[in-house]
Every structure is written in C-alpha cells, then in structure tokens.
C-alpha cells in the first residue's frame, strides 16, 4: 500500500490495521452464529413447555442477540464500507452466511433444542474464554462481557441434559434421538475453515484442538451424570463456515429478512 503524506491523518487513524481487517470474516462468522441461534431460540417464545423455561429461553436468546449485535457492529467497522449491523444481518443471502450448521438446525422438540444448545454452549464458553485474552482489544471486550452470560447458559443447558437423560424413559429416548440427529454437526465447530486457519497462524483465532479437548471433557462429564453415551465414529458434516448450509437456513432467513427485503431502504 502506498503511503501518502497528503492523506488526512484522521482517515488513517480511523481505519483498522491490516491485521485487523483480516478479522472481518471471522467476526462476521461469530455474528451470524449468535444471530441464528438467537433466532431459533426466539421461536420458542410463548410456546415453551413450562413458563419458567419459556422465560429462560427468551433470556438466552436475548443474550445471543446482544452478542450478535456487538459482533455485527464491529464487523461493519472493520469492513469500513458503510454497511450497518442491519445491512449485514438482513441483506446477505444464505450462501453468504458463515454460521456453522449446528445452530441453524430446527428446534425439534425440547430435547432437540437442549442438545443443540448444550453442545454449542460448550464450544462457545471455551471459545470466549480464549478470545477474552486474545490480541484484539475489541473482540476481547465483547468476549469478556459474553463469557459471563455463556457461563450461565452452559449451566442451564447442562442441567437440562442431566434431567432429560436421567429423567423418564420418554425423556431419555428423546434426548438420545436428539444426540443422534445432531452429533454429525459437532465436528465443524472446531474444524478450522481456511479463514480461521489463516487467523490462527496470526494468533487472532485460538487453537481449536485445545478448545476441542476442553469441550469434550465438559460434554463427557455432563453426559456421564445424565447417564448418556457420547457417540463415536460419527461422520461429521461441515460447510456452514464456508457458506454451504443445510436447507433449513434459507427458510429461516426468508422469515428473518422479510421486512427488509419487502421494504428496502427504510428506517424502522
């Protein structure tokens, strides 16, 4: 890049560093992931199995939505093309979305939602612990705030995995079915995409092998208490982080983006 001494000083000061600019796709991926999971959880609102759990799911959805907004705002800043958080969330197509496949899976029954949540919480919590001491100050600040919420989420979802696994015959059958359905999406979380690999080399994205170990230990502990078996030898699906999604995401986005697509360019 050519340096020009006549360039206004503030333009260079406001622009993110070259290393930071590389972070854009990763921050966007974090934003998409939190938004899609928040959206799925919010679908339960008013339909939960117990009023207290309806409240809990809305609460967790709100945490993820808040986290998504922080990431989108930061991503917009990193990109520096004048796009807003809403432009990024509402005006990108399914193939541009970068969330892992797990979080876009439909809610299913309460067991399906709990298993999806618990697995993601395990990844999310351990990821945030790393990001909060990472080299990027802004990402560290978002992680610092979010990890407190994630600690509560993982406690909530783990407790439900235990209740359902070690509850009744029916709850056990349902939670086992959910694990069987969703396990194939668990590998992608810690399989770095090309973007992540590059950022890992630069130190911006933590080592996923270490996170995987912590996750697996956490899952094993909770499954043991729930008297559930950890599946082995499952073929792992991936692609979400590169924009190749399951069919479910298109429907979700059709609903999520309906207003912005129908009435382009308006303020709400």
């Amino acid at each position, binding site marked *: 890049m050519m340096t020009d001494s006549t360039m206004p000083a503030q333009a260079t000061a406001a622009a993110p560093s070259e290393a930071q600019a590389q972070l854009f796709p990763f921050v966007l991926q974090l934003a998409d992931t939190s938004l899609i999971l928040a959206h799925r959880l919010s679908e339960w609102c008013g339909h939960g199995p117990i*009023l207290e759990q309806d409240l809990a799911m809305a*609460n967790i959805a709100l945490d993820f939505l808040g986290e998504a907004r922080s990431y989108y705002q930061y991503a917009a800043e990193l990109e520096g093309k004048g796009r807003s958080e809403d432009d990024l969330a509402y005006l990108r197509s399914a193939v541009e979305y970068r969330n892992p496949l797990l979080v876009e899976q439909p809610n299913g029954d*309460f067991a399906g939602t709990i298993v999806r949540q618990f697995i993601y919480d395990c990844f999310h919590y351990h990821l945030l612990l790393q990001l909060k001491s990472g080299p990027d100050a802004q990402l560290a600040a978002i992680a610092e705030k979010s990890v407190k919420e994630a600690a509560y989420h993982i406690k909530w979802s783990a407790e439900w995995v235990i209740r359902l696994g*070690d509850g009744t015959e029916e709850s056990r059958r349902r939670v086992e079915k959910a694990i069987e359905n969703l396990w194939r999406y668990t590998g992608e979380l810690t399989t770095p995409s090309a973007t992540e690999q590059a950022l890992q080399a630069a130190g911006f994205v933590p080592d996923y092998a270490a996170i995987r170990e912590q996750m697996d230990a956490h899952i094993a502990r909770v499954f043991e208490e729930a008297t559930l078996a950890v599946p082995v030898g499952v073929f792992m699906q991936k692609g979400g982080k590169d924009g190749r999604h399951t069919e479910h995401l298109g429907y979700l986005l059709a609903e999520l983006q309906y207003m912005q697509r129908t009435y382009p360019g*308006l303020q709400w």
Partner: protein
Amino acid sequence: METLELTQEEQFQARIDADVRIEPKDWMPDAYRKTLIRQISQHAHSELVGMLPEGNWITRAPSLKRKSILLAKVQDEAGHGLYLYSAAETLGASRDQMLADLHSGKAKYSSIFNYPTLSWADMGCVGWLVDGAAILNQVPLCRTSYGPYARAMVRVCKEESFHQRQGFEIMQTLCEGSPEQKAMAQEGLNRWWWPTLMMFGPADADSPNTAQSMNWRIKRFTNDELRQKFVDMMVPQAEFLGLTVPDPNLKWNEAKQGYDFGDVDWEEFWNVVKGNGMCNKERLQARVQAHEEGAWVREAALAHAEKRKQREAVAA
C-alpha cells in the same frame, strides 16, 4: 355462628373502607376470594396468551434493535404471568388448576388477543393502544385491596409503561417514514381502535360485577369511566402522529372537557368473548399444544428431582 360471620364480614369491610391491605392469611369472604382468583388468574392468562400475537413478529422484526426490544417485551409478559399466577396461588388456587381452566375454556383471558397481528404496525398498535388501555385498567390495581395482587401490579405497571412508549415509538417511526409506512400505521390504527375500546369491558349498565368489586376496592373506576379516560388520552396522541381515529362521531365536548365518541359494536365484543373472534381457536390451541407437548418435560424434571432426592437420602 351467623353473628360471628357477620362480625367478621363487617370487620373485613371496615378494613377495606380504611384502605388497609388484605393479606393471604387474613380472613376474607369466600366471594371476595373467588372474585380475586377469577380476576387475577384471568389477568395471568391474558399475559400468557398475550405473548402469542406479538410473539408472532419476533422472527420477522425489521431490525436487530426492534427484534431485541420485542423479544424483551414478550419475555416481560411471561414474567408478569409468573408473578400473577403466584399472587393467585396465595389465595389457594393452584397453577395446574388455573391452566386447566384456561385450556378447557372455563377461564377467560382478555379478548383483545383474539385479534390477529397482520403487519409490523400491529406491534406499534399493540404497545401504544393495547398496553395503553391495559395501563389505565391496571394502574388503579396498584392500590387494590388485596396485598399480593397490588404489589405484583406495581411491577407490572412499571414495565407496561415502558412497553407503551416502545409501541408509540414504533408508530412514530412509521408515521415519519415513507408513505407506505404511514399507510401501514393508519391501517393498524383502523383495525385496533375499536377492539381496544372494548378492553374496558361492557358498558356500566351491563357490567354486573362492577358494584361489588368497587365496594371491595378490587376495582376503583367503572368501565365507562376508564374508556372515557382512554379516548381523552389517545386522541391527542393520534393527532400528534398525524393519524385519523376511525370514528366519524368523535368530537370534543367543551362542556364535559372530554371527547364524545361513537358506539362500540357490542355484538362484536360478545361474539369474540363467546369464542368467535378471528383467533380464539388458534390462541387456545397454541396454549394447549405447548402444555401437552411440554408434559414429558415436566414429568422428566419431576422424575429426576425424585431420583436425586432418593440418592441423597441413601447417601445420608
């Protein structure tokens, strides 16, 4: 026996008249207890069913900020339901029984939630008009004679006034937006205005429970008084927004320092109460379905708690 009862009854009324709060352990007439259980559970049910018409739009909210506010608002309603059920439980009602009465159709909830939410402007109208009407109904309840209900209502009202402001702000944003958005706002108002006026209940002449409830200070204003207050409060706000209230008979009355307004369509009101509103069936079905599909979850939680208790007993 009879004289003793009368004395209790008289003492009770004397406490009410002196504005002393009635607490769960105090003696109270059966009819007072029944009236309160009916009213509080109906109120709790309204919060629960009321989550559905707005919940409808959480997944379609037009911006991340709006989505977040709407989700938080609907979650508040779940919270209101929770403390109202708890208040009713202090009178000896069980949550299971109250829910069973809702699901069987025996217990009522506010009819307003049997109207559909068809556009984003409806999120504005529900907040601005429906919550506005609810606040007028509920603020006096912060001083209602039964302590736990009054205290629950203090919290509910604080949150409701925030809800109303966010509804008004949605309307204001629409009215300051494109012609399409302004039309959306007007169309919403056209549909919600009359059903909102019905939220205050039948005209005083047709409201059989009002006199007793006023006497027990469960209720502090009559239905017609509150309806008038609402119209007087809302018309200037509609004018500020540049919207037209859909009532050709609406006119300022200098002598009474309030608006005259047209007749509410009571036939529609009773029809919706009887179950013939656009969404009565869907709303109730959605609640029944959530409850039935949640049965195995509740059973699992109980079974697990029981297992845990037994294990702890063995360990000890």
